[in-house]
């Protein structure tokens, strides 16, 4: 079974981003970038399926500027076999990404496509579902457990109120939730080995997709700042404040 995994280069999750002075966008110049944490989980799951003898090849794909290569090399170091970089300077929104991924998947013909459930920059949580729609495939979103059995995929999903298990025919699309696995650390020898693994470049034009954004970002702003709180000296003072000042209990 061939697995396709989509990875995104995003601002590192520990960075608190700032808005540009003109309010046009977020300032990500000179900010540490990393692989989206949910995508690390996606790569890890693919590698584990390969280690378990269920998958034969793992292809990773990333879309965006030249530096996405670094993200792909990280995925290769984690255990992916080869990489595809859809290189473009265009602003990519989930619908465009889904269309580009469909074009890649049409060529690669994977049995399973794994994506993160959301990217921590745009927080959209859309691409996997959109790709499933465009390819007319079943979707196992927010997966916390994935099991291959009798040519189908059992996916345990994290839903409001608990867990739900669905059975999907293959090929299928899975999006990862946090508890699916614990991604491995990349070891130095694997980073060196990853430099020799194949990384192909294609452009949106090669794939016949117009990535033009559908949504116009009019402005961005900082959220309203909460007014400074006060330190209370005792539990009694806290309860008194909640009762008399905040009036919430």
């Amino acid at each position, binding site marked *: 079974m061939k697995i396709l995994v989509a990875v995104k280069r995003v601002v590192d999750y520990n960075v608190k981003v700032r808005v540009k002075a003109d309010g046009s966008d977020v300032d990500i110049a000179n900010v540490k970038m990393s692989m989206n944490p949910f995508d690390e989980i996606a790569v890890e799951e693919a590698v584990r399926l390969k280690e378990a003898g269920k998958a034969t090849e793992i292809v990773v794909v990333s879309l965006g500027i030249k530096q996405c290569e670094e993200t792909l090399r990280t995925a290769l170091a984690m255990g992916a076999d080869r990489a595809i970089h859809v290189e473009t300077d265009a602003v990519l929104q989930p619908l465009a990404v889904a269309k580009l991924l469909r074009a890649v998947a049409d060529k690669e013909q994977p049995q399973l496509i794994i994506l993160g459930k959301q990217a921590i920059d745009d927080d959209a949580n859309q691409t996997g579902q959109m790709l499933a729609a465009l390819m007319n495939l079943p979707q196992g979103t927010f997966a916390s457990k994935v099991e291959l059995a009798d040519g189908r995929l059992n996916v345990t999903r994290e839903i409001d109120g608990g867990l739900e298990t669905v*059975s999907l025919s293959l090929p299928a699309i899975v999006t990862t939730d946090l508890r699916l696995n614990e991604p491995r650390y990349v070891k130095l020898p694997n980073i060196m080995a990853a430099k020799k693994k194949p990384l192909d470049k294609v452009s949106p034009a090669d794939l016949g997709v117009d990535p033009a954004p559908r*949504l116009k970002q009019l402005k961005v702003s900082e959220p309203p700042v909460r007014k400074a709180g006060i330190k209370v000296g005792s539990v009694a003072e806290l*309860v008194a404040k909640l009762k008399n000042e905040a009036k919430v209990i």
Partner: protein
Amino acid sequence: MSILVIAEHDNASLKAATLNTVTAAAKLGGDIHVLVAGHNAGAAAQAAAKVAGVSKVLLAEAAHLAHPLAENLAPIVVELARGYSHVLAPATTQGKNLLPRVAALLDVAQISDVIAIESADTFVRPIYAGNVIATVQSSDAIKVLTVRTTAFDAAGDGAAATIDNIAGGSDTGVSRFVSAELTKSSRPELGAAKIVVSGGRALASSEQFHAVLEPLADKLGAAIGASRAAVDAGYAPNDYQVGQTGKIVAPQLYIAVGISGAIQHLAGMKDSKVIVAINKDEEAPIFQVADYALVADLFTAVPELIAELNK
């Protein structure tokens, strides 16, 4: 211009998130129709028909709609959507699962987690774990949005809307429901609770998490939440998680007990009206958003708090 709201329900009753979504729909102006797709979902449709602002309920019934599988629901919504200017669903796990599939089939963008509606085509949504607020404009013919429920009040009761039966579509067969394991709780639902008591890693074990927080939650009639650290450590079930990747809550009172306050956790609770933090680390980032900060050991402070509330 008319608006389609996708109801969330368990066939017998309407989920509260639907009421917040109807309020968001009302801000757009126009007729509001609610789709109830399910199996033996007459009671849910009746409930939807009673919501203020709803002019029509569309009831799609079929055995294969007993569980809300996106593969079976999306074609029904897509078929209907062409007659509407907007399609809305709550930004719950169900709405997030379904709506992007609908949007892609309609070849339109989807706008996630809308917190404010500026006009029929301009919406406000948080990005970067709520650290940035973006205003976006859609040029698509049909606007497909998920609504952050905590940003809109619940719609009240209204006159009875008409209920029209529509076709339930066919079973695509590519996916099927196997089982569900729901967390049983007699406490209020986390997303809708007026008071939330949340615990973090400092609770140190599952036993202590429950032993310390439950009496406080019971005293206050509160829901219990947890930080990711507490969930990962197995102190609390996954669906207790408050944060960027868990539930977004905005209660009247949020009490953070032994939670340091990582960016990802703050994303899920910083719109609470009043935030109380109890932490023994004076430097914990949670104190930057807390209205009332108590620097104390939670194992003594929480029992004291319960005793004080009992006075």
